[in-house]
């Protein structure tokens, strides 16, 4: 199978670094943001930021011609 490109993998590692390995840095109550404890706020923010990273990875993979198929209707 064609492996994903290095750039796409690096983009995917960002959410892992931010929400998994760094838990010791953000697992705290204060400072509260928007009335949420900091750890809740941080993880909710990454629900929104992860799609951004993966959108970048998607663009990379599409421009590389990964999963070209009959139904691939992307204009790019």
């Amino acid at each position, binding site marked *: 199978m064609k492996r994903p490109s290095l750039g796409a993998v690096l983009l995917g590692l960002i959410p892992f670094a931010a929400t*998994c390995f760094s838990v010791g840095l953000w697992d705290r109550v204060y400072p509260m943001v928007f009335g949420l404890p900091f750890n809740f706020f941080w993880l909710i923010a990454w629900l929104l930021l992860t799609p951004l990273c993966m959108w970048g990875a998607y663009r990379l*993979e599409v421009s590389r011609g990964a999963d070209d198929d009959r139904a691939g209707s992307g204009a790019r």
Partner: protein
Amino acid sequence: MGFVARFHHKMDLEQWTVGGRGFGLVLVWLLMAGEIYTTFTFLGASGWAYSRGGPVLYILGYLPLMYVVSFYILPPIWEVGRMHGLQTQADFFQVRYRSSFLAAFVALVGVVCLIPYLQVQITGLGLIVEVASFGGIDRTPAMIIAFALVGAFVFVSGVRGVAWASIVKDLLLLLAAVFVGFAVPRVYFGGIGPMFAALARAKPAHLVMPGATKDLGHGWYITSVLLTSFGCYMWPQFFAASFTARSGRVLRRNAVIMPLYGITMPLMFIVGLCAVLVLPDLGNGDLSLLTIVRKSFPAWFLGLVGGAGALTAMVAAAIQLLAGATLYAKNLWRPIVAPGMTDQQVARLAKIMVLILTSGALFFAIHSSISLVSLLLVGYAGVAQLFPGVVLGLFSRRVTAEGVFVGLVTGLSIAMFLMLTGQDPYRGLNAGFIALCFNFGATGVVSLLTPVRVAGFDKAVPSIAAPQSGKGVGPTV
């Protein structure tokens, strides 16, 4: 709705299991969301927020990450699926490693791990009916009636019906989650912010890890998030859902947007956390959401929330039954007991299996009582052990059937030993994750010691499902 879906499509095994491989972005999205947001979301997440506190955040941690993992592995899996006409997860092992024995073993692992997951749904349904009827209906008859309905539904409509039923349940669940998540803190505290402020004053330790537990700290969080995000798409039903997509690109786009759907999850946590202050003496955390809704709103509203929860459980259970039954009939029974079976006979056997699996899970649900999250963790630890075989199978040419088998057995033995002897978490780490590390090690070592017979996916190998509908099946090179 699901029953209607049947009339538009001729039902052979291909249609029943993978919807003829014609699902676009919206249907695949719904199907995957339908599978991933289960009763566990609804009752388990609020239950853990109530009883454990901070450690519940692991759910919010793995949610986006499992889609990140899916971005890399589902499109190639889909491609292999189209190339060889795959319908189940075990089919994948069959074409990659060309070993019916390994495929049958994978099917067995899948079916066995599905039982605790099904049990989660049944137990959830029972809790809902019990609370929503104010104790008027016993849990056992409620579970039996609900499951008879689910069984009948799957029996008749297959995967397309399930995807459409998902729409109704997603809408209901979304509305219920948003309303309850905002309204409950408003009723008791005047809003989400003041609720957190009150909780941070009264019980600050409850909001961070390890919360109300002794051993669910940061090490446990990291290992659990990794295990769950790697393991999630190893569930046979999620794995097989990727075959329903129209293209690999649909799956990638799906992986990009799915994390947004997780936004209902923190709302469930919030309800559970409100209950910490409002209902401090609840025996069973899994009841916290329903009890607080019952206490705060009129009875008809509890009915609506209960209905959304019940429908969620039923859709999830339907998908699990469909996957389990097909796996059993196609990859365990046919190769071992009756190799001459036609696809029609396999489809018939799969439908009988739906009934048997339903009864089995019902039996366990009636005779045991563990918390919803704990049940799910056992299944995850088991099913995640399939990860090395899938990922190395996709991206490495050196991995062998023997390596995968030894790794799988090693991982399963370690996971089961640690969990059954009550040593999960083990030294502050998730037992399933420890097992997965040994699994990877054993797979690698044994693969290097055994000769490579199959080094990837061979386009020349004929499709393993005899194509009958002729639509989108078989090699299209």
